[in-house]
């Protein structure tokens, strides 16, 4: 049986960044409706549903009921904020296996309205790591800072170089009317912002926003019948990395493996990628991903990002042209969804004209979720415009 292929047929990013008057389930429904409208499909076309831990209820059960879906395939794999990127791959696999034809993936939440800090650990003694971490008050940012500090030590990376990642995000976000932070910032602004967890400043950290997004992935013949630009899932990979005490390593991520799998499946190399959406929970998250995905050698990330090299139109690799999680949107503390959405916009030619990459026929969306220093999950998809 020939692989029917899987296409991203619908995308929707909720315009809100503060959802005081909406419930979490309601936000999931709004983004689902938005993606269906974008695809030109109806609710009853959906026969597969994918969600992660931001969806309220037991796995997919509550949301499938709330949305009134009739699915024959459901999956609630949670590898942190990169989950929706993995879900795109899992939807493509389910379609290839004949388990569904039209898959809905949703992410949504309202941490800002509810004043929920990111990385809040569940105080459950059965989480095996909890006894060994909670007594040390593990701030999420401090874990990423441990990796940044180690990278600086091993490779000479500087705070100025990390700041350039935020500067590039702000240059993109100024064109996005929905972005939470549209003000241009400079390297000096980043360095002058308060220290959250040394060496990471406030402006090295992503924003906290409400809202969410949704994606519709369809079987080849469904996608081709819709009359929308065709964005095919070409390759994918997922990986999980952790520390076991011995053989510690804080400067490489699971992206080495997830990226390699995606490149091999797609039959392409980093040089073929015209646009990259990559997870930017913190500036260091971007820098490590660029190295681990092969856009530069390990240790060269600082030089790769400085002087605006990630800015669309002027840099060597346009990254996060919506403004990313650093400036635009990081709904439900999870940045994977918006990474796929902006990559799809770029491939369709529907990004903002000021940041649209010319002849963008091959793009990557990459996520790094969880706690970078202790345990994290990476997911990578390579998408192609046909």
């Amino acid at each position, binding site marked *: 049986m020939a692989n029917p292929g899987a296409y991203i047929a619908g995308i929707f990013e909720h315009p809100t960044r503060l959802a005081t008057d909406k419930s979490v389930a309601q936000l999931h429904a709004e983004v689902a409706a938005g993606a269906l409208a974008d695809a030109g499909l109806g609710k009853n076309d959906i026969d597969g549903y994918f969600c992660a831990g931001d969806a309220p209820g037991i796995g997919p059960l509550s949301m499938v009921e709330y949305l009134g879906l009739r699915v024959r395939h459901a999956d609630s794999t949670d590898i942190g904020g990169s989950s929706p990127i993995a879900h795109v791959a899992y939807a493509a696999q389910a379609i290839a296996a004949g388990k569904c034809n039209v898959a809905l993936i949703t992410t949504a939440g309202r941490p800002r309205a509810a004043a929920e800090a990111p990385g809040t650990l569940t105080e459950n003694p*059965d989480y095996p790591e909890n006894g060994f971490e909670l007594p040390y008050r593990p701030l999420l940012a401090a874990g990423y800072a441990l990796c940044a500090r180690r990278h600086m030590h091993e490779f000479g990376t500087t705070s100025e170089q990390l700041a350039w990642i935020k500067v590039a995000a702000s240059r993109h976000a100024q064109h996005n009317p929905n972005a939470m932070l549209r003000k241009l910032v400079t390297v000096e602004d980043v360095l002058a912002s308060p*220290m*959250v967890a*040394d060496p*990471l400043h406030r402006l090295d950290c992503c924003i906290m926003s409400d809202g969410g997004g949704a994606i519709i992935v369809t079987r080849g013949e469904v996608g081709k019948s819709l009359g929308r630009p065709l964005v095919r899932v070409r390759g994918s990979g997922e990986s999980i990395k952790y520390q076991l*005490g011995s053989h510690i390593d804080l400067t490489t991520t699971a992206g080495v493996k997830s990226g390699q799998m995606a490149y091999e499946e797609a039959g392409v190399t980093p040089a073929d990628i015209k646009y990259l959406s990559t997870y930017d929970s913190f500036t260091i998250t971007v820098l490590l991903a660029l190295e681990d995905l092969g856009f530069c050698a390990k240790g060269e990330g600082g030089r790769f990002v400085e002087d605006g090299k990630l800015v669309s139109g002027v840099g060597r690799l346009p990254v996060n042209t919506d403004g990313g999680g650093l400036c635009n949107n990081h709904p439900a503390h999870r940045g994977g969804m918006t990474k796929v959405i902006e990559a799809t916009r770029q491939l369709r030619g529907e990004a903002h004209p000021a940041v649209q990459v010319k002849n963008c026929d091959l793009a990557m969306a990459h996520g790094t979720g969880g706690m970078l220093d202790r345990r994290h999950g990476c997911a990578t998809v390579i998408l192609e415009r046909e």
Partner: protein
Amino acid sequence: MSSQNPSRPSPMQTVETKPFWEASARGELLYGSCSACGEKHYYPRARCPYCLSDQVTWLAASGRGTIYSYSAVPRGNPPYVSAYVMLEEGVAVFTNIVECDPGDLSIGLAVELVFEKSRDGQPVAVFRPAS
């Protein structure tokens, strides 16, 4: 021997980790060592995370180590320092550096094990610059 720190959350214990916390109360920091594959690990487990053997012994660390990486959190209440300390046994431990000026810390700095009592009085392993 242990100073009290009312801002330190108390460790949650399980039947598996009870011996670890009993050792902490004696002033010992335990790590896992597997006789089936020879690997060491932290945090200690009943089964080796390298080979899943149950031939694991929990050994007491010497208490000497160096800072592998650290991050000062100046706006903590009170401020504190997160760190990975590399024990001289070759095992890295997620912990805090105490009794220090964060500006004096660096990767590679020699540190020594001390215990601080959490809110409920349970001693918790932390490190300070070596005397």
